[in-house]
């Protein structure tokens, strides 16, 4: 669109699809997860009620967010945690860095947190002489490759095991050509264990923060968050303001939905609750806005803050599965990312709401009932108003609108176009300008439109009751390709 700093989704997607075999592999890997999700959700008869309940709880919490945030702060502080407030990514990074510096921490282990990705915490800490190691296996793999995660739950889903084998051989000195997953996982564990033991502090994200108790809940499958905050004496938990839920009783609604939606598991392997620091240790909770208040204030996009980051919309999205997470050029890719990204920076992410067929699968799979595809449509309108949709598109749609306001212009235009399609030689129709025709034929262009056939039939039949067989069908099925 207005010259974003990165390539647009359509171009990156096209590059991804160029390797058709790989795109197919990527598609099947994610479809496999979607099917696992289906099997798990089928075991819960009240699934749709759970979704509604979860959505209601989130909407209630968002409506009373200032109240619940303050209640959370009070209760967390009572248990000895230190609560910090960050307006944006920059303030968040500074707060985290200051805590680490004051403590004298040099080596940090971090479990998966999309918020710290969103704030680009790692490069900031590295600039300040602090080493950060991502301890989620997938996240660590993409960190070793110096690339961003391509999925919010499975960060390395785009990488094949052979490529991981090569990466580990190069970076960790594992056996060349050995891509046995168990071998590679053991090697990763061996290397990560040393990082855990040496760490001065652990950073985690937060899946849920309970206002009535002041506790935070972290869900992982690898136990890396628990190890990362149990060995060092300093734990920093970073969360967006939308992670709040009112009471502990509400938690089970979400834990039942999260694991099933994310990876088709009944529950994540670890659901860890942190209520204040351990004796002799410190717990800091950094609560970040970074644009969320603006989303909360917008009627159209408010319920996107329901998101519990399960990634189900990515696994189900037919475009995401075939274009890969990196084609979105955003920390959170896929359908939900395409709503969140333009609210951060419409100019640079204005292409994302168009990277979608509006099929609606994301909205139906979403465990917290975000109307994702309708919000993507609304974003298209917002972008057109901001003139971020290219002028060619806006101009052609305005012209089409003028034509369509005048039935005779439309009819004559249609007739001329169909005639042209019938008489023009193939090379004139199928050329570089015709994106439709690159890998597809255009529909056959019949001599008569429906309105012409309908009119003629009225003239010849009069008002007599229609017979079972009408002759008009032959003319239109004249399929001389």
């Amino acid at each position, binding site marked *: 669109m207005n010259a974003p700093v990165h390539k647009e989704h*359509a171009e990156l997607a*096209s590059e991804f699809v*160029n390797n*058709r075999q790989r*795109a197919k592999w990527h598609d099947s890997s994610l*479809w496999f997860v979607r099917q696992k999700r*289906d099997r798990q*959700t089928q075991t*819960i008869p009240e699934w*749709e009620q759970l979704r509604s309940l979860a959505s209601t709880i989130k909407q209630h919490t968002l409506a009373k967010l200032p109240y619940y945030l303050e209640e959370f702060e009070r209760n967390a502080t009572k248990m000895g945690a230190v609560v910090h407030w960050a307006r944006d990514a920059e303030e968040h990074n500074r707060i985290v860095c200051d805590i680490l510096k004051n403590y004298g921490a040099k080596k940090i282990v971090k479990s998966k947190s999309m918020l710290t990705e969103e704030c680009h915490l790692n490069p900031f800490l590295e600039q300040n002489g602090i080493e950060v190691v991502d301890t989620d296996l997938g996240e660590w793999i993409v960190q070793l490759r110096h690339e961003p995660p391509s999925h919010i739950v499975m960060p390395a889903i785009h990488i094949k095991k052979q490529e991981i084998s090569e990466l580990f051989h190069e970076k960790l000195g594992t056996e060349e050509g050995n891509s046995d997953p168990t071998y590679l996982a053991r090697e990763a564990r061996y290397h990560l264990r040393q990082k855990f033991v040496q760490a001065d502090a652990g950073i985690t994200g937060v899946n849920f923060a309970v206002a009535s108790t002041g506790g935070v809940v972290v869900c992982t499958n690898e136990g890396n968050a628990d190890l990362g905050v149990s060995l060092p004496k300093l734990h920093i938990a970073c969360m967006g303001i939308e992670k709040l839920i009112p009471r502990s009783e509400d938690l089970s609604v979400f834990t039942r939905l999260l694991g099933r939606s994310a990876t088709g598991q009944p529950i994540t392997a670890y659901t860890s609750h942190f209520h204040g620091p351990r004796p002799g240790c410190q717990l800091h909770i950094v609560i970040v806005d970074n644009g969320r208040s603006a989303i909360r204030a917008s009627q159209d996009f408010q319920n996107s803050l329901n998101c519990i980051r399960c990634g189900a919309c990515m696994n189900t999205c*037919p*475009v995401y599965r*075939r274009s890969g997470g990196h084609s979105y050029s955003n920390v959170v890719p896929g359908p939900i990312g395409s709503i969140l990204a333009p609210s951060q920076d419409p100019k640079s992410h204005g292409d994302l709401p*168009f*990277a*979608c*067929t*509006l*099929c*609606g*699968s994301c*909205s*139906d799979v979403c465990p917290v009932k975000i109307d994702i595809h309708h919000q993507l*449509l609304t*974003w*298209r*309108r*917002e972008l*057109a108003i901001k003139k971020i949709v290219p002028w060619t*598109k*806006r101009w052609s*749609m*305005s012209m*089409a*609108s003028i034509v*369509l306001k005048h*039935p005779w212009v439309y009819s004559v235009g*249609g007739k001329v176009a169909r005639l042209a399609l019938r008489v023009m030689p193939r090379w004139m129709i199928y050329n570089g300008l015709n*994106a*439709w025709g*690159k*890998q*597809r*034929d255009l*529909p056959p262009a*019949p001599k*008569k439109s*429906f*309105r012409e*056939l*309908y009119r003629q039939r009225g003239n010849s039949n009069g008002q007599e009751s*229609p017979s079972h067989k*009408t002759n*008009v*069908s032959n003319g*239109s099925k*004249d*399929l*001389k*390709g």
Partner: protein
Amino acid sequence: MSVKNQFSRAVLAMRVGLFIPCYVDQFYPDVGMATVEVLEKLNLEVDFPAEQTCCGQPMLNTGCTSAAVPLAKRFVEIFAEYDYVVCPSGSCTSMVRNHFHELLHDDPGYLKLQKKSFELCEFLHDVLGLTRWEGEFPYRVGIHQSCHGLRELRLEGCSEEMRSRPQKVKGFLSGLTGIEFTQLKRPDECCGFGGTFAVAQEAISVMMGDDRLEDHQQAGTEVLTATDMSCLMHMEGIIRRNKIPMAVMHVAEILAGRKPTKPWKPSEIKPASA
């Protein structure tokens, strides 16, 4: 048809305004004719107001709302006089029912229209209360669940949701003698058409279409059908380019008693049982 006898005088007296999507009017006139025949078989009074052009969905879907508003206004005026508006497209019906609100808000004319606009199968099922359709169609049929019909109009239950819904499309077709339905690996994945997406994201769009057709081929589909000609236009384009032996028909054409032809060779294909 015996079904017509089931209807009361009130039903038979109603006037149905036919909404034929612009691209169907121009490129698939027989789908429009088949729709007329299906409704007239039921002795309904059907009228096609010739002033209609397009509902404005292409404009709305590209974000060009201001270009869509005048088309939506025209549409409401043109169809105001009918008791029902029936359309052989789930997507265009959804535009009227679910999205005109963004353009016309609480315009009283629109709110009336919203309640009386139906996709063809939905009209037969919800308004006329039909559950079966008589006729013969001895072919292996693959149903493409067009997304807007499926998830915006809820013509059938979708694989994401854990609830059952009435089958307003498959239900009708299953009454036809000799029909067999093919089992797909992915019963309701999008075909990749998506309006301007088909051109703006050509590579993904075609891969999605290829994948759908591959699924239908492995399942043994002879006739590919849907409630939306737009999805079928996209997949037919791939079928014709690659000479895939599969016929493409709109649901209305099957209900109207048409026989399938291969889209790239006008010879009739053999019935499944042969």
